[in-house]
């Protein structure tokens, strides 16, 4: 009841104050909308990167050979083992699909380019790599590559290129491959410097018959290690994305922290001025029977009410604007591909309830705090001097 009256009086004071109130409300609401927008962009980007990475390479987790390390290409020499026992049953039941990875080189246009050669089951349906296109017709080895790889090697669908690799004994061999398909994925990790061929072909080429480096798990696979194959869950596989996102988020948060600080400074400034300019009013409140603490409460609540009005205003003009952006997306410049992150041509922001609620709380709490500090001065004001309107 007491708090309701304090809020009611704060509302009355602010509505009565007119333009001063609405300027503060507008500045704070702008900060609110920008915070939701920038975080929504990052969340949308994160979500898209997460989903794309899951769809194109991570699956529902992976089972790695004990010595496999994706950051160490030299480990590939030994990071493979036969598909036997329990793991082969999982492959047969299509819960997981094997991947064999080795180093190789291609020679497009006379130059040499080192690549990672990935062998994938042509019948798999766990990830989006168009593996069905890898079914060879005749002697040639069919390969699929991503659009980034195609661009860097200047290859088009149907082009042939010489590829050199080493078999399990370290002996070099070479053969032409032809580009059966060029896929467009937002995951550079499976695209740049990567060539995908049939698992069977790669096993035959390297002499690593029935062997794999890792297995990608489908939805049916419940998780957990199998024999010497170590299970890496999606969270583990996404930790690089999470780290990049966290770094980007902290960088972007500087922008909105500055914006919020400016908005809060406006409220702080108004409150400091109010405590000086409204001395007579403060004295009157006390004479009419308010405790000083209650007057501090009203002045603090005015800041809170500004933030509530800002949020309402933010919702009124922000929701249609943010929804429109969510629908149309924000086009991303091609250069962001160089970040090495999964990124599409357009980012579609994602505004979660959690994001909106946390931003609402951030704005309300911070506005309340910056209003409280100047209002605290009221508790030291002498009411008899305040009644005369004397600046103390």
């Amino acid at each position, binding site marked *: *009841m007491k708090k309701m*009256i304090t809020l*009611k*009086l704060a509302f*009355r*004071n602010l*509505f*009565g*104050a007119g333009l001063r109130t609405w300027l503060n409300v507008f500045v704070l609401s702008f900060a609110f909308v920008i915070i939701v927008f920038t975080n929504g962009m990052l969340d949308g980007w994160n979500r898209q990167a997460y989903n794309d990475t899951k769809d194109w390479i991570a699956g529902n987790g992976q089972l790695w050979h004990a010595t496999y390390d994706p950051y160490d290409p030299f480990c590939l020499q030994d990071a493979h083992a036969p598909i036997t026992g329990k793991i082969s049953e999982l492959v047969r039941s299509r819960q997981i699909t094997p991947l064999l990875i080795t180093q190789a080189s291609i020679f497009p246009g006379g130059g040499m380019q080192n690549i990672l050669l990935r062998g994938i089951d042509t019948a798999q349906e766990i990830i989006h790599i168009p593996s069905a296109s890898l079914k060879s017709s005749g002697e040639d080895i069919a390969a699929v590559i991503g659009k980034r790889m195609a661009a860097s090697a200047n290859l088009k669908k149907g082009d042939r290129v010489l590829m050199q690799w080493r078999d399990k004994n370290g002996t070099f061999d070479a053969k032409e491959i032809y580009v059966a398909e060029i896929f467009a994925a937002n995951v550079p990790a499976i695209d740049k410097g990567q060539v995908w061929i049939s698992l069977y072909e790669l096993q035959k080429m390297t002499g690593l018959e029935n062997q794999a480096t890792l297995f990608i798990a489908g939805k049916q696979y419940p998780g957990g290690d199998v024999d010497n194959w170590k299970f890496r869950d999606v969270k583990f596989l996404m930790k690089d994305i999470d780290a990049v996102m966290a770094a980007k988020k902290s960088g972007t948060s500087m922008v909105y922290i500055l914006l919020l600080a400016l908005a809060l400074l406006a409220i702080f400034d108004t409150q400091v001025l109010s405590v000086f300019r409204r001395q*007579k*009013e403060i*004295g*009157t409140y*006390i*004479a*009419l*029977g*308010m*405790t*000083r*603490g*209650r007057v501090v409460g009203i002045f603090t609540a005015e800041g809170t009410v500004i933030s509530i009005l800002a949020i309402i205003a933010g919702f009124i003009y922000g929701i249609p604007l943010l929804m429109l952006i969510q629908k149309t997306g924000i086009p991303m410049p091609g250069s962001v591909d160089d970040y090495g992150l999964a990124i599409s041509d357009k980012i579609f922001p994602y505004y979660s309830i959690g994001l909106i609620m946390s931003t609402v709380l951030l704005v309300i709490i911070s506005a309340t705090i910056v209003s409280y500090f100047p209002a605290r001065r009221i508790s030291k004001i002498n*009411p*008899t001097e305040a*009644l005369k*309107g004397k600046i103390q």
Partner: protein
Amino acid sequence: MSDNPIISITGLSKRFRMGAGDFTALHDINLTFKVGEFAGLVGPSGSGKTTLLNIIGSLDIPSDGEAIVLEKSVSALSHKEAAMLRNIHIGFIFQTYNLLPVYTVFENVEFALLLQKKNATQRKKAVMEALEWVGLTDKERSRPAQLSGGECQRVAIARAMVKRPSLVLADEPSANLDAKNSHHIVQTMKRLNRELKTTFIFATHDEKVMEYLDRIITLVDGRVEKDTFMGSSKN
């Protein structure tokens, strides 16, 4: 008029710190006010009228002596108790009206009742009644800036009276008003004093107000020089 004292002041002094020394605004004041009095503290500027009124209103405390208001010693009250005393039992009327500029007339008068947690129906009834006492029912939606000085002071009277206080303290209520309005507001207060048995204490040096007082306490340099009960004040 009841014989019960509503205010009892004994040996009261008030000193203010001024630079290196002290300034004594009130010296050894001894006064008693009975319920229903229509009294005035008169004297030139700086004589201590407002200081005494502030102490009676529990906005300030004495340096020495005691002021007992409605059976409570002002010096012994906590901030909260003093606020409650003012909110329930004491109405204030100021020279410069001190209306809250962003509130309407209705909201200004309603303010004290909001603090008393009266419900909306009770508040509406009491506010309209108070506005009727001062003849401003047609101005309930106006803001102070849209009113004349006389009207503002009548709103202030309604605000002081709406909670039916035991005591109203009026500090130079006519200082900013012309003669006609001065008479009008004092007549209004006199009528409320008669009808509601509310005790009124004025701080004034306005002859027009003094005409209506039943008791005039003259203060000079912070001392009571004269305490006169008037036999035939204007009604």
